[in-house]
């Protein structure tokens, strides 16, 4: 296969995943939440159980007027949704779907690149919050910035624990080194990573930056139309990315319960990603929102110490074996 064709296929596959996976997760959220709350959820679009609801939403959003408030800082306000989406696109490139070539691009420093790029999310939130020139947006944005900065730490420390266990920063390398007993060995890191990941994507119970009962809609208050749709897409992509990273780092990625990893690896990965996504949606239905200072205390006094303890445990076990 010529090089340009291979590159084209790789890039296009990532873009297709970028556009379809969040729709699947978003539709699942509509239906799962509805049934958990004794409702039916969308039932009309696409005729069969409202399967096309998010497609219809997209068609609606793209026809809407592009409104910027008079007081807003126009270029920054309009750029923010693009900055919010870009990191997720880049992260999807390095997440392996299956063994061998089933990855957008295997980078040696994949595990280093991912948190570095996800850190850009803070910038997007602060841009949208500050440029909106709205008090509620600003409050929400400051909450979000403190939350994203805080929870990045336990998340990165948990990821470092996996790097220590596997002895590599390459994501496919980590999956190859993974062994089922890591589920026990790395369990604290898994829990810390998942909880911190929930906070990183601002999902309930960590949705204080949006907190629609306190702050109108936080840093998204002034957005409408396509730009608002991009922020929503970023939220669903966040679920996909956090679920995929949990899968790759802690749940063994393409490794299945019985052999056949070369043939069925992609299926195991997808099953695990959707299972974790289901859990993320479930958390939204099950738990109420934390208060802002409770959120910070949970991070600094529970998650960070647990993550540090896990680092000690990982080093001790690795050197002992």
């Amino acid at each position, binding site marked *: 296969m010529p090089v340009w064709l291979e590159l084209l296929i790789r890039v296009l596959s990532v873009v297709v995943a970028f556009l379809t996976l969040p729709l699947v997760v978003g539709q699942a959220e509509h239906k799962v939440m509805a049934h958990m709350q004794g409702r039916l959820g969308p039932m009309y679009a696409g005729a069969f159980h409202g399967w096309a609801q998010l497609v219809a939403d997209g068609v609606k959003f793209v026809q809407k007027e592009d409104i910027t408030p008079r007081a807003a800082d126009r270029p920054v306000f309009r750029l923010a949704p693009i900055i919010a989406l870009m990191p997720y696109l880049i992260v999807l490139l390095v997440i392996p779907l299956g063994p061998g070539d089933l990855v957008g691009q295997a980078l040696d420093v994949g595990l280093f690149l991912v948190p570095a790029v996800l850190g850009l999310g803070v910038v997007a939130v602060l841009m949208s919050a500050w440029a909106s020139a709205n008090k509620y947006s*600003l409050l929400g944005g400051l909450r979000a910035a403190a939350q994203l900065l805080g929870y990045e730490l336990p998340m990165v420390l948990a990821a470092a624990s996996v790097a220590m266990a596997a002895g590599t920063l390459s994501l496919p390398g980590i999956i190859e080194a993974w062994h089922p007993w890591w589920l026990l060995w790395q369990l604290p890191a898994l829990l810390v990573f998942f909880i911190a990941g929930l906070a990183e994507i601002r999902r309930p119970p960590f949705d204080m930056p949006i907190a629609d009962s306190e702050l109108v809609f936080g840093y998204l208050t002034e957005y409408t139309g396509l730009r608002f749709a991009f922020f929503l897409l970023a939220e669903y992509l966040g679920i996909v990315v956090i679920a995929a990273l949990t899968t790759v780092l802690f749940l063994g990625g393409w490794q299945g319960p019985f052999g056949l990893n070369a043939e069925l690896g992609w299926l195991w990965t997808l099953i695990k990603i959707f299972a974790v996504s289901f859990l993320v949606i479930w958390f939204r239905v099950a738990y109420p929102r934390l208060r802002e*200072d409770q959120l910070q205390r949970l991070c600094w006094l529970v998650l*960070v110490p647990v993550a540090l303890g896990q680092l000690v445990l990982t*080093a001790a076990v690795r*050197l002992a074996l």
Partner: protein
Amino acid sequence: MSRRLYGVDGYLGSYATLGLLLIAGLLFFVAAFSANRLLRPARPAEPPGKRATYECGLDPVGGGWAQAQIRYYVYAYLYVLFAVESVFLFPWAVVYAQPGFGTTTVVEMAIFVAVLALGILYAWRKRVLRWT
């Protein structure tokens, strides 16, 4: 330099995909906003208040960039402390278990991390993590 560094399958070549993906992402946004430009209302109504700042339907009082008490900078300090640590942690994590490193390497990193953990302890004792 050699092909190992610059070729398509060389070290930097693997980042070419990243560059192409960024271009593809930009094309996606250009396409989406062009479609929006074609499909949105050509002569939208401009009622008064349409572009006003939205604050629960009342007229906004004062500017949006008003002064506010910001409690959050403490978290930013704590964050910087540990972000630097984690940058050192990753390269260390790859090598510490290899032959020739061993216990000394682990103890060194443990001392480094412990000093930073003292920082959290201090912040906790100083009650910066409590608001009332």
